[in-house]
């Protein structure tokens, strides 16, 4: 019984420590306003595709920040997923498939092989804009589902691309995880560590009670 108890205590301690570490990491990563920012790895001159599985997976707007390389431009187009798929066809694109939270970066996969995609000549986009300086586009969920494609200017590489989601509740949840972790650590430690036994002074029945009552 004591062994099982100690084993459970160790489990609680480990779970608590894990919660404290994970909660602390997330609290530091998210900050007090709960902002998760992920950088898209460099894709060279290949356009980057953001599909509904990325843009519309939460109820929160996504902030996409595009930074063209100095002296070049980038075209940002947003449209219906089926329209974007019809336009892109077999053109080479780098598709954002998810995020690696620990690396704070997005994950990519390459698709298609054809070159010569020209977004500017196409009349299917809900919005399209050409930018030459760092630009943030807020993708609202009211128009979901939608697909975004970011294409660097002709012959140029895309400078940088980041995706940002914000929810203050995420920071609060990280704090709750830390709190729960601390409680589990304390509970586990209390179960594992041997308790100090209180040594009471042995008492003799009648001690002091009968003093002075002995009749000589």
């Amino acid at each position, binding site marked *: *019984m004591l062994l*099982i*108890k100690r084993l*459970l*205590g160790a*489990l*609680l301690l480990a*779970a608590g420590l894990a919660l404290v570490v994970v909660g602390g990491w997330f609290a530091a990563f998210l900050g007090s306003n709960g902002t998760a920012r992920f950088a898209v790895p460099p894709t060279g001159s290949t356009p980057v595709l953001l*599909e*509904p*599985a990325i*843009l*519309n*997976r*939460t*109820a*929160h707007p996504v902030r996409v920040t595009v930074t063209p390389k100095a002296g070049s431009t980038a075209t940002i187009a947003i449209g*219906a*997923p*089926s*329209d974007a798929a*019809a*336009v892109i*066809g077999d053109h080479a694109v780098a598709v954002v498939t998810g995020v690696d939270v620990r690396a704070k970066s997005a994950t990519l996969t390459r698709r298609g092989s054809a070159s010569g995609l020209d977004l500017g*000549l*196409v*009349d*299917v*986009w*809900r*919005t399209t804009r050409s930018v030459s300086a760092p630009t943030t586009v807020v993708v609202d969920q009211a128009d*979901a*589902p939608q697909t975004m494609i970011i294409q660097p200017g002709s012959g140029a590489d895309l400078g940088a691309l980041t995706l940002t989601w914000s*929810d203050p509740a*995420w920071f609060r*949840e990280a704090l709750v995880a830390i709190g729960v972790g601390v409680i*589990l650590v304390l*509970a586990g430690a209390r*179960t594992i560590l041997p308790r100090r036994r209180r040594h009471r002074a042995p008492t003799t029945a009648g001690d002091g009670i009968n003093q002075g009552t002995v009749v000589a």
Partner: protein
Amino acid sequence: MTRRRTWGALALAGVLAAGGCGIPDRVVGLRAAPTVPSDPAILTATAARQVSQRALDRASEAMTGPDADEAARKSALLGPALRLAEVKDKFVAEGRTNALTLPPAVTLLGVSRGPGWPRYLLATAQAEDVQSLYVFVQTDATTPFKLQTTVPMEPGASIPAMPLLT
């Protein structure tokens, strides 16, 4: 008392171990991406207005440009509008000075719905005191909208009300 505590700790450890599955999705608020409506309007009102204005600009250049520029005509015109542009002595509607006078602003009347092609835009505009209807057609995803038909409207003519564009 000790046994009760042990069972309590066991239950807590079980809940923690089993509850780990699926927690991240719920905490973050992940959901499946919404699906596309069955017959969405092909463009928003703003985008459709920009597209129709751009298509009309190209059509005006092609219609009034040199007769030898066949490529420009075919890239901007389609159907009756293209046939009209290809004749040497172009038809000029009464009250107009050339085959297609570019209006200062276009009012969008309707867009087709659904994911397929061809797609249509219907617009109207007034140029040289003549109100006209313009039909633009997009044959596939990678081809821009082209002017297909221009119809001058007679005084008092009207068209049925169409769904409001958003």
